[in-house]
């Protein structure tokens, strides 16, 4: 048989050799697979008040009473109109395992890792979570430090620090976090504003320190010894506070042009914020400012603070200097509506003007005058659309008294119209306010001060519920808090509809702290739609006039404020968490 002589056989064989060579070459040149991104989570804990002094623990096996660590990857509910929360992946580990590895977790957006520690009875002893994050095939490796703290309790915020006298990188401890800054500066502050950023971080602007022993009467202008121009950012991923005004840029720091305390900050885009008014200290005097400043975190360091210039190249400013006002951003028209406040004429100079900062046309206009001048009121957006916008202005105080009246600012092209709304049953100012997800949409007004003459401002326990579309306050919808409090904060939890009420000042003098948190438990089938549950956690460091910010890791962050310290009540520098235990799937 002379097969080899046959051309087809030869062709087949030589083709095979060529293909093999090409194939082997191709193999050699093939790309390596993309490695899976790895996210590292380092957990630590703050122990409960169980008879021993609470403390940070680095190893959770040292956490009292803990048997298991429950790990959940969730996609939490983020707002009332959006999705419900879902648990994507879960793993329960013995605490003595000291760690766990979860491979091949599905990519996704708005994910969150939650952790809870459980005792032998499967009760949750402590919990914590990461901020929301996205993961995809292009994600780089990330690291998170997550603090686990007792549910429905206040704790210090912890972060990892390496003491300066230790040389080894392993010689680190967890310590409470405070405001950052030059070593010489006093870091405590009051009158500052904390604004949540979309990525879970928090921007803290301005604030100041008090001259004298305390803030005085709630309706008086605080006497400030210093007013800060600083910007600080808190990052819950690592627990650190960074003073971006002192980031090794002494020549050109990112610092506000004017000091601001008791001002307002509105977010106009993901990384851009407008700071309006507030108190400043100038020439030895504390007085309100007209300043409007822009903080743009997307810019390079050194260029993150700016002004908005008008057509003539002059920086925009409010028509009237003011503090204790409200500023509301209307996305449809790119306008900021500034309402009321206290003017430069002293405690009695309560303003009625409504100003609009127009970012499109770069101008500031006074568009209307309220029927009643007011300060320390609340403002709720009724409508924000290209067809028209409206704000509901609720309560506040005039020069003579607390107010129960409400007004509607109806914005039209070029101007605004003021209409009267329904009156609350209780006149109040400096109250907490929160929208509630019922139909028709409604708002809860919680606590507040009711008097200008009374020494402590006569805070109230009464909370009322207003119907936004009708601007009315239906009878029979009020309820009483456990504690009378003015200047408190209220937060609707995202995974349930309960409202947490924190802080505020009670009846009496400057030291009338209200350290207990309360919950309004939602039951929308009933009227009133909430039921009060009192004493749900006690501040370990009582404070008021603090900021309170609901983070997307589920925690409520308190920064600074006037509070108790080992040196007596003063403006605090510390940060604190309240853990509402708002865990996906636990409702």
């Amino acid at each position, binding site marked *: *048989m*002379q*097969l*080899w*002589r046959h051309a087809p*056989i030869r062709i*087949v*064989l030589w083709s*095979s*050799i060529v*293909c*093999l060579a*090409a*194939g*082997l070459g*191709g*193999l050699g040149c*093939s*790309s*390596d*697979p*993309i490695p*899976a*991104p*790895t*996210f*590292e*989570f*380092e*957990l*630590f804990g703050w122990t409960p008040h169980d008879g021993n002094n609470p403390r940070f623990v680095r*190893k*959770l*096996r040292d956490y009292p009473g803990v048997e298991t*660590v429950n*790990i959940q*990857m969730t996609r939490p509910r983020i707002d009332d109109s959006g999705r419900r929360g*879902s*648990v994507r992946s*879960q793993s*329960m580990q013995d*605490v003595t395992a*000291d*760690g*766990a*590895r*979860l*491979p*091949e*977790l*599905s*990519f996704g957006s708005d994910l969150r*890792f939650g*952790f809870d520690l459980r005792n032998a009875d*499967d*009760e949750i002893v402590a919990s914590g979570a990461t901020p929301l994050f996205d*993961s995809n*095939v292009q994600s780089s490796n990330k690291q998170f430090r997550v603090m686990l703290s007792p549910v429905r309790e206040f704790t210090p915020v912890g972060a990892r620090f390496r003491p300066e006298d230790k040389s080894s990188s392993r010689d680190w401890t967890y310590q409470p976090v405070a405001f950052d800054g030059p070593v010489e500066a006093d870091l405590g502050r009051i009158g500052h504003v904390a604004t949540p950023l979309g990525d879970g971080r928090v921007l803290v602007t301005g604030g100041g320190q008090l001259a004298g022993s305390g803030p005085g009467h709630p309706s008086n202008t605080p006497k400030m010894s210093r007013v800060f121009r600083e910007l600080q950012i808190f990052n819950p991923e690592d627990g650190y506070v960074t003073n971006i005004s002192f980031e090794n840029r002494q020549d050109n720091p990112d610092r506000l042009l004017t000091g601001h305390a008791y001002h307002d900050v509105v977010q106009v885009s993901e990384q851009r914020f407008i700071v309006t008014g507030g108190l400043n200290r100038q020439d030895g005097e504390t007085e309100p400012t007209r300043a409007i400043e822009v903080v743009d975190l997307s810019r390079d360091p050194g260029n993150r603070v700016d002004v908005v210039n008008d057509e003539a190249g002059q920086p925009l400013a409010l028509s009237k200097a003011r503090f204790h006002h409200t500023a509301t951003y209307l996305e449809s028209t790119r306008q900021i509506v500034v309402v009321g406040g206290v003017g430069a004429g002293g405690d009695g100079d309560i303003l009625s003007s409504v100003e609009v900062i127009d970012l499109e046309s770069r101008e500031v206009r006074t568009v209307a005058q309220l029927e009643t001048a007011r300060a320390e009121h609340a403002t709720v957006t009724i409508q924000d659309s290209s067809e028209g916008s409206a704000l509901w202005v609720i309560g506040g105080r005039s020069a003579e008294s607390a107010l129960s009246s409400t007004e509607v600012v109806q914005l039209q092209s070029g101007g605004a119209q003021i209409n009267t709304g329904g009156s609350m049953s209780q006149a109040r100012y400096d109250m907490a306010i929160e929208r509630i997800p019922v139909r028709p949409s409604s708002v809860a007004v919680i606590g507040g001060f009711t008097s200008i003459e009374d020494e402590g401002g006569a805070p109230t326990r009464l909370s009322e519920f207003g119907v936004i579309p009708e601007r009315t306050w239906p009878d029979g919808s009020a309820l009483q808090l456990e504690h009378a409090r003015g200047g408190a904060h209220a937060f609707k939890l995202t995974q349930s509809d309960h409202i947490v009420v924190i802080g505020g000042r009670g009846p009496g003098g400057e030291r009338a702290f209200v350290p207990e948190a309360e919950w309004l438990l939602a039951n929308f*089938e009933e009227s009133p739609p909430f039921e009060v549950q009192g004493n749900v956690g006690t501040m370990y460091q009582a404070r008021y006039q603090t900021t309170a910010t609901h983070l997307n890791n589920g925690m409520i962050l308190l920064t600074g404020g006037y509070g108790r310290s080992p040196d007596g009540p003063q403006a605090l520098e510390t940060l604190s968490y309240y853990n509402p235990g708002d865990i996906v*799937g636990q409702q």
Partner: protein
Amino acid sequence: MARTSTHRCWHGGYAWSAALAVIVCLVAPHSLSAQSSSESESEASNAEQEETSSTDGQDEGPTPEMALLPTHSIGDDISDLVPERIGEMLRKRAGSDDRLKLLSSFRNMRQEESQEGSVSQTIAKAREQYKSGIGLLNAGKFEKSSEKLKSAVELIKGNVADLREFDVLVDALAKLSRAYFEAGYDFDARKRITEYAHLRPNAELNPDDFPEGLRKIYKREARKVDQAGTSTIAVETDAEQATVWLDGEEKGTAPLKISDATYGYHYLVVKDPRGRSWAKRIQVPGRDRTRTFQPTLEGEGTDTADDSRASSASEDGGQQASEDDDSMPAFYTELRQRIEDGSFSADDVRPYFKEFADETGATYVAWVSMFRNDGSYTAAPFVYRASDGRIVRIERTDFNVQLSDLRVGVSTMSTNLVETTLEMPDKRAVQSVTLVEPEQDEKPEAVASSSAETSSESESVSSAPSDDTSTEPTSPPASPPEPAPKRQNRRVWTYVGIGGAVLAVGGLVAGGFALFGGDQSPSRPPGFTANVSW
């Protein structure tokens, strides 16, 4: 033979072809695996899963759910009382064995169904789904089980006023949560076990049936129920003599107040003697609060006193009662006739067994045929397995005619029945059954032929070789002359070479497509990894 250059070249070609074939066989799979390693892994795991699920029902045995047909006799020389009595005792004995679950007799099942009177078709369908879901759950088919059980729960919830046995809903919720949990639907599992905890906050979940994670969720919710305290539910209605049920438990006649309603979601049903009803899933808030309901009953009820479908629970002769009345379905009657005939083929009866198993939800069906065997009675049990249609014979048991060994015999038979059912051995599998009566002096012989025995018999009856020694061996037919060894060698190498070349081309073409014709991008990770340390 002189070696020519062509010859040398061809030998070289043989070697190259063979070498190419070997190299391609080694290399080409790697080029494919670079593209599809994850696919093959998932296929392997799928295959594993399929393999696991296919053996689940057979090897590791969930508790068999057995229907026991009435014991019968073959022929006329045994009084009916004998198989009846033995059947009753067997039912009692086997029913007490924890290794299997004995279902009610078919007659009783049908009576229970008909006793429900006004039970709607929807509830009947819900029951079917519920039973089917349980079967799938026990077989480890969690995803399908969850679909069936979910359907059952939804049907029941929509018709809770018609539900006579509230425990069906409660049990369905518990089993559904387990199915979801095992199938990986965490959130749904939590939801259902939470519902279950509201209805049964004091239950003890069997660790064999419920995973630890699920039991922990249940305990947590039950604790919440306990801590929330009770509420008062007030029911006010214009309907006269309306009975109020809460979670299937009768509470009295409206107007009334139920003062110990526990926290959570519950089912409130109000019905009057005319059959009108109202049902609602209510939320009980706890904390000593009161909720009032003023239902308006609906529906055209009939006077239950005239309901001809009202049942009588009495039975004649226990569960071994005659099932020969005309109300039995045709398939059942046919099945009984065929097996009581004493002679049948497995293929003939399988369809009837299958329908019976589908109707009853039984995973096994057993029966006992009895016949006279000289001075004794012989009981020949059999069992059918629904999952694959296998029929297996069980070891016979003899009883003396005085039946003095009745108890011992039944005990032995019951043990054999259970153990053989659990094992279903190959050697006892039958294709046809012939239980013959002895003729005249011949002893009766029961012959149950199996495939193994048949083949041995056939072997034994295979014809013997011829004894004709005169036959001379014939010479084998002429075959072509053997080729010379070298040429044979060449031919072998030729075939190897051609085969190798075909393999080479085929493998390289496939590998080439995999490398160059497909997606050139590097393989993407299926997800990210979380490393948690504490």
